[in-house]
């Protein structure tokens, strides 16, 4: 089952706009390699989970995978063939709001080659353009 918050203040949220780039969560912190979003967008809980499973199946018991995004935003929709009006739709799924530059996943404990192959599989499932990144040098 996909991720979702345990407790929320409001059942529904407004759509909002994705403005600017990620100034937080834009560097590899926990692992050695990361997958960075190059576009903004909503990434649904199902997609995050699908990516996690794809990576985990490739890694097997080697290395460690870190998921850096969480679906905090409830996305609503109105049923098909419904007349206009009658208020906002019901929550359908949960999504993570991703700004360009956000690190989506991180991997540690594997070689760079293995991490690249793993993220290549995972990247196919992402609804935004992504790229492979390394940890920034320590200064």
């Amino acid at each position, binding site marked *: *089952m*996909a*991720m*979702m*918050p*345990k*407790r*929320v*203040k*409001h*059942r529904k949220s407004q759509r909002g706009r994705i403005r600017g*780039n*990620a*100034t937080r969560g*834009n*560097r590899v912190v926990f692992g050695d390699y990361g997958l*960075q979003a*190059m576009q903004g967008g909503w990434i649904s809980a199902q997609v995050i*989970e699908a990516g996690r*499973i794809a990576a*985990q*199946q490739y890694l097997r*018991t*080697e*290395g*460690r995978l870190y998921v850096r995004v969480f679906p905090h935003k409830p996305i609503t929709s109105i049923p098909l063939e419904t007349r206009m009006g009658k208020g906002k739709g019901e*929550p359908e799924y949960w999504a993570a709001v991703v700004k*360009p*530059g956000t690190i989506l996943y991180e991997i*540690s*404990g594997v070689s760079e080659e293995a991490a690249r192959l793993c993220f290549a599989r995972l990247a196919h499932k992402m609804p935004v353009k992504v790229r492979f*990144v390394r*940890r*920034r*040098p*320590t*200064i």
Partner: protein
Amino acid sequence: MAEEVTVEIRTDQGKRRIRRLRKAGKTPAVLYGHGQASVSLAVPTEQLEAVIRHGSRVVKLRGALQEQAIIRELQWDIYGLEILHVDFVRVYEHEMVEIKVPLELRGEAPGVKEGGVLEQLVHEVRIQCDVNVIPEKVYVSVHGLGLNGSVSLAAVELPPKAKLLDDPETVVVQCIAPKEMEEEEAIPAAASGEPELIGRKPEQEEEKEEEE
């Protein structure tokens, strides 16, 4: 080993001029420290990137200035592709400096052969050492790390006269049993349906109150 960097005194300020400077293949920089006046500089980006790539921390500034400095801070763009600005701090020969150095693991842990996974929790460490002997990296040996074991910062191999500034009891690396796929999937499965609303009473309580 200190690398040489050719610097120019920079009089241009403001974002448009700085953007032009970056397009021309130079990176804005600043030099400060030792109670002297700070100086705005421009450094060739290629040279700076080479210094960073080689892991050098001490640089000899040549050209408009003849000084020795350490790289204190780097500003990166949002994607971590380009260096936007660099801070240099003046240092004397044999001065003791506080600096962060990357931490790497050395050796093979027996716990991995038993089926465990190494999890490195600390990737950089703060040390105080002579400016001439700043290590590129410091290492922690994991030769004796078994399954469900851990190694703390006290085991870090430091260069002579270097002092550890971080808490020596901090766990650097641990060897844990790998999580099974099914076990991981079971965690989010517990949260099904809709999440609880903060500040809203459960429906059963609301119904009871209405009845009363």
